[in-house]
């Protein structure tokens, strides 16, 4: 089985490279062809960017593309689409959705954003208040979303709304794909502690959404949203980079530049301790990938997300300490821009330090990850809930 799968993947890689040499083909054209060869999400069915094989082969595909001088940066240029939207559309979308959206998404012809969080509903996503009311074949949306990463570039949004306020909070939700160019959509920048505005607040005023952009049944929005979140946690924590890369490489670089062989033994030991932990975490991610099944990832995706978030914060902070006085600087200064990608990657040690503070918040906070692991993986009892079986209208909110 595994050898058959490998053969299939290899054949497609070779065919792709023959028709579209990775180093010489314009990025979007290459990504489109990659999709057509079933190498976008190998676990998807044929015709939908996949080959119907285990998702573990994706790492191999991406590695080969990078080695051949091609780019896989679409995965973070369009992280909310490719990382989260695609899995959701595969699991819950209609055939038309899958035909219409996946290819341009993968080719980065259309950028996606995620419209879940609201000022009053972050960790408690199911408390959200943005309403959608049906009028014939159209839904009319009103409300405010917040922390919408790349909302300023997005053509499409993954939107969760409340369609029935009288049901308990999880039951009254419905999921849509929203056209960010539709009437009544207002995207405003929100600046972050790095000075940049990767995220936005998004206001909907009587925004129409045709019913055929609904994903899943009316009232089934929570289940669809969960699929997105499970995919998100894997997208955030679950990518396997080469040994010693990522934030630990910035720490090692700072060490070598500033201290070299005669550095402080305590700091050296701390550095090695982080290196070991980063490598152990990387191996865990590799192991999880190997075991991954087709379909939506389970709650164990929170393991990598939790570990990565806390370790990344610790390492980037330690790197600033290693730099000593230089850690009091912010080279390049604060620029109040709206970037075209999130700066979790490929960035200076200083910016990485600030950006990392979001890692334990975005995609579900570390506290929430711990609750998920405790309750859904370890099977511990949940906390008493005051908000479960009463109408959403009656749940206390701040």
């Amino acid at each position, binding site marked *: 089985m595994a050898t058959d799968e490998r053969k299939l993947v290899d054949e497609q890689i070779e065919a792709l490279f023959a028709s579209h040499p990775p180093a010489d083909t314009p990025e979007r054209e290459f990504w489109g062809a990659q999709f057509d060869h079933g190498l976008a999400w190998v676990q998807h069915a044929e015709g939908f960017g996949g080959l119907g094989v285990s998702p573990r082969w994706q790492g191999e595909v991406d590695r080969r593309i990078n080695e051949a001088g091609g780019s896989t940066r679409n995965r973070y240029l369009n992280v909310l689409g490719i990382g989260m939207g695609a899995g959701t559309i595969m699991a819950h979308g209609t055939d038309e959705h899958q035909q219409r959206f996946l290819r341009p998404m993968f080719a980065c012809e259309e950028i996606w954003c995620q419209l879940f969080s609201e000022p009053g509903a*972050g960790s408690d996503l199911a408390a959200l208040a943005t309403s959608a009311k049906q009028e014939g074949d159209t839904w009319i949306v009103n409300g405010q979303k*917040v922390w919408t990463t790349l909302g300023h570039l997005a053509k499409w949004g993954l939107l969760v709304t409340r369609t029935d306020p009288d049901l308990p909070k999880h039951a009254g939700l419905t999921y849509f794909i929203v056209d960010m160019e539709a009437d009544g959509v207002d995207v405003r920048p929100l600046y972050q502690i790095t000075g940049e505005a990767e995220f936005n607040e998004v206001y909907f005023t009587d925004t129409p959404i045709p019913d055929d952009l609904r994903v899943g049944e009316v009232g089934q929005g929570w289940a669809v949203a969960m699929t997105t979140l499970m995919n998100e946690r894997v997208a955030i924590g679950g990518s396997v980079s080469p040994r010693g890369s990522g934030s630990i490489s910035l720490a090692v670089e700072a060490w070598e530049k500033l201290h070299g062989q005669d550095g402080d033994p305590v700091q050296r030991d701390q550095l090695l301790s982080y290196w070991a932990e980063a490598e152990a975490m990387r191996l865990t991610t590799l192991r999880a990938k190997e075991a991954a099944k087709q379909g939506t990832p389970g709650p164990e995706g929170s393991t990598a997300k939790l570990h990565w978030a806390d370790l990344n914060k610790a390492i980037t902070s330690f790197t600033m300490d290693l730099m000593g006085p*230089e850690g009091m600087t912010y080279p*390049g200064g604060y620029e109040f821009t709206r970037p075209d990608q999130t700066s979790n990657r490929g960035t200076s040690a200083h910016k990485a330090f600030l950006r990392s*503070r979001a890692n334990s918040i975005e995609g579900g906070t570390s506290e929430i990850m711990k609750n998920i692991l405790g309750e859904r993986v370890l099977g511990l009892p949940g906390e008493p809930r005051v908000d479960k079986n009463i109408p959403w209208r009656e749940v206390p909110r*701040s």
Partner: protein
Amino acid sequence: MTVTTAPPVVAFALTEEQKLLVDMVRDVLKDRATSERVREVMLGDDGFDEVLWTELANLGLTGLTIPEQYGGAGSTFTELSLVFEELGRRLAPVPLLSSVVLGAEAVLAAGSDEQKGAILPGVAAGTTRLALAHLDPAGRLTADPGVRAVRDGDAWVLDGTAGFVVDGRTATHLVTAANGPDGLELFVVAGDTAGVERTDLEVLDLTRPMASIVYSGVRVQDADRLSGADAVAALHRALEAGVVAIACEQAGGTQETLRTTTAYARDRVQFGRSIGSFQAIKHRLAEMLVASESARSAAYHAARILAAGEREELAIAAPLAKSYCSEIYEQATGHGIQIFGGIGFTWEHDAHLYFKRAKSTKLLLGDPKHHRALLGQAIGL
């Protein structure tokens, strides 16, 4: 361990007068050092809040620790430390650390009577603003600073670069450490002297500017060389006072972070409950409280020991306060962002300002590792 004598005991309790001082400072800062104002200054070109500075000077706060004979109030460092704690709560962008502590303490310790008489009244009045330029371009404190002094008849010529000078661009005078033929010397150089070039560094904490200062053939008179006492010992005293002032500021910032975060944890509702009702949050805040109390104690102790002139105990108390308060402030502000969640990661929220101040002061005038090494020496470990 060679330390056997019991440490000197200093009372923590504030006198009535000191309480009045705290109230007065709080009142001023409440109106003047609002978040909006701090942000306006930190993004503007002035480098410090001139309005607030003038007000602090009018209230006599810039002259608190300057002896009466030089136009100050002759109070102790305990009083000044209370001011730092309050400034730390609000991140007020004023050059009190650079001028009244680092600069003035160096002049007090190294200057002749005449020099003190010439410089310190202006400092006390707030019209003279000193900055201490004593680090090499990379910000290291070494026996050989970044600037060299060569004698030329009655004058001296300074060449080189001093790095990481707090408030260095806007100071009226630079207390400059330079290596001369007979070792370290301290010169008081007017900021507008020919050959002095000052450039702001791109700093992490915008509420506390730092500059790189290039000296190219800068001529100063011998009268501007602090000649009352040994420069190395004087520099050491100034830095020790600076370290204690920072620790008090950090204790203030830690308390403020705990206060605002606790208030948010009480008000913010998720899952139908205040997030402070979740033990993950409640316990973290309780831990912050414990740490914050210990940080305060370490900072207060150091300030009172400095005020009492107990040099031997200060060698323990100062590095203890700086290393401990630095770690606690950093932790607390990190927890702060986490407990605020998404809003805590935004520019518009103040959590990041404290977080950056914490990281920056942790590395300013020696990181915790450096200070723990000093502590180790002091206790004979």
